């Protein structure tokens, strides 16, 4: 119902959308629910790209499956919508084939951390030069609100109807301990800071990671009595604690508890290809042709 209405309304709007250069307007309206944080994350990402004034031709977005997995489909960039959990290894192949390209994985928590968890930690370990953006909505939203490895303990989901009794992952800790060179977390309320975080992550060489806290407004928030979109914003406002440089071991998210946000890691480290090139140069000397130096 509401989708149709939006189409009609949008059809009459003649003014250019401010993000038109970066969005596939022929695919709007998008599938996300009103008050969903994914749209905010996309807007912040697009704004970051604008601010950086980088060549959009040189940016690719890879997504997996799920609500956030649809991001690739709305960005007017070379964009790849892959399979569940596999956006990261697809991006690894792409980033190695096109070393000068900014390859961004934009996906959800279930996709990146559950089914794709192994790919996530190994790609961070290798410090492959990609940016991973994870919209953490605390559940599997597209399939109807099942428990995820990020669901806070005690929270209710459609497959933990009596409450979740297992420990969730702390994503900044996972990324940092696996080797990421940049780790930040913001909520969907912190649009300006989130935009800056994206811009910083995009400028990093190596595996950069930004977690966007955006509990699913349709399935998680309601089920767990966080109210609607506006109430969610108020929740973020009242409960976020900005702590730059916080020890990632101390940023666990408890049920309806404070959320520590900020930039936790920002270090320099040779990338996967840097290490490979250096290693081979040591072994083969001048005979080794540095990989990725010339692009076409």
């Amino acid at each position, binding site marked *: 119902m509401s989708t149709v209405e939006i189409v009609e309304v949008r059809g009459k709007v003649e003014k250019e959308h401010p993000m038109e250069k970066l969005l596939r307007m022929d695919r709007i309206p998008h599938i996300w629910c009103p008050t969903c944080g994914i749209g905010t994350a996309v807007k912040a990402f697009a704004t970051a790209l604008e601010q950086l004034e980088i060549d959009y031709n040189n940016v690719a977005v890879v997504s997996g499956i799920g609500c956030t997995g649809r991001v690739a489909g709305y960005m007017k960039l070379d964009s790849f919508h892959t399979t569940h959990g596999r956006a990261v290894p697809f991006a690894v192949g792409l980033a190695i*084939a096109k070393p000068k390209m900014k390859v961004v994985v934009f996906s959800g928590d279930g996709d990146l951390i559950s089914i794709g968890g*192994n790919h996530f930690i190994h790609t961070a370990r290798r410090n492959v030069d990609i940016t991973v953006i994870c919209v953490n909505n605390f559940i599997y939203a597209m399939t109807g609100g099942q428990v995820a490895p990020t669901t806070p303990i005690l929270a209710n989901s459609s497959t933990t109807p009596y409450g979740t009794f297992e420990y969730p992952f702390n994503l900044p800790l996972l990324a940092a301990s696996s080797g990421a060179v940049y780790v930040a977390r913001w909520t969907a309320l912190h649009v300006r800071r989130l935009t800056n975080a994206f811009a910083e992550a995009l400028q990093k060489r190596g595996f950069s990671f930004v977690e966007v806290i955006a509990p699913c407004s349709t399935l998680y928030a309601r089920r767990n009595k966080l109210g609607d979109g506006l109430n969610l914003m108020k929740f973020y406002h009242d409960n976020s604690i900005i702590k730059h440089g916080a020890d990632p071991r101390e940023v666990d998210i408890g049920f309806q508890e404070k959320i520590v946000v900020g930039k936790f890691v920002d270090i320099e480290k040779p990338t996967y290809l840097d290490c490979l090139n250096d290693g081979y140069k040591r072994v083969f000397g001048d005979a080794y042709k540095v990989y990725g130096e010339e692009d076409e």
Partner: protein
Amino acid sequence: MTKIKTVKADPRDVLTGEHYLDGNHASAEGGIAAGCKFFGGYPITPSTEIAERISQRFPKVGGIFIQMEDEMASMNAILGASWGGVKSMTCTSGPGFSLMMENFGLGIMLETPCVLVNVQRGGPSTGLPTLPGQADMMQARWGSHGDYEVIALCPDSPQESFELTIHAFNLSERYRIPVFVMTDECVGHMTEKVVIPGAEEIDLVPRRYTDKSPEEYWPYIPEKDLVPLMPPVGKGYKFHITGLTHDYRGYPVINAEVQEKCVRRLMDKIIKNAKDIIWIEEKDIEGAEVVLLSYGITSRVVQPAIEKAKKEGIKVGQIRLVTVWPFPEERVRELASKIGAYVMVEMNYGQVYYEVERCAAGKCKTVLVPHAGGTVHNPEDVYVAIKEAVK
């Protein structure tokens, strides 16, 4: 028919000369000669020598070898690299092949050129890691979910492992499809003379890129041969591709009508070009009472049995399936009414055999010489089957 231009292999990639190599090393050299510059793989017996040789050779030819965290990652990494414009391959066996199936399907759906070498071992499950089998043939055909067509090549020797790996790359670029090289432990670990020709004798199909401008281009508008041309990444095409059912724009459309169009063309681009893809070798078909079908190592092992039967006056014809998929349906159907029997010899309990039976459609007898794997057939068993077939 769309005329496909070819280019010569780069001499820097080709190890021209006579070598004594096993099938796995020969496959690796075939990939390198074909211009493969990205290999993502995970170690698994009996395919590992391919990865090992590539890892040793790639730094010298400007390629990147990466040992991925698992087979799902390997398959996706080669898809990503291929979209990045780099020829890519992986190798695996048994359990790893099962793990690659999901994203082999993504390769089919996105129409991604790349090559997957499966050095078949005995199964199911962990089965016989160090011994041969040919029991993944139907998995190659149907292993990923959904309807699609595949191309699978079966080398019978190290020499052919080299040649068919190059051929696999050419078919994959030609038809924009991941192509299987379905070898086995016996061929993979068998060492024989491999003659690698000069680069000027190796023709390669280059990436079929669009010549349209970004404004005019959509990813899935096919050419006359039903194959759409690829966009170069990073050049402003800002294309979108998805594993979801999609329209000509590459945009997801979830309905029956677009599904029909999308799937139909994925199948037709192989079915309608099957005549150009199918590669079979026939021998003594004229006047044959019985025609023996085989592929890969099995087609060598059956020879003593055929000689023995011939000495007794039995007229035995042979078809060696170099491509098992697409299956040479038309030919098998046509011959069925002219011969007394087909004898299918394969290292499994009946896989390609059922295709033979289906195409024979009762017009001639069909006999299977099965084998669970672990070693090759005893030629004597094949001989007995031929005798049985002409009874």
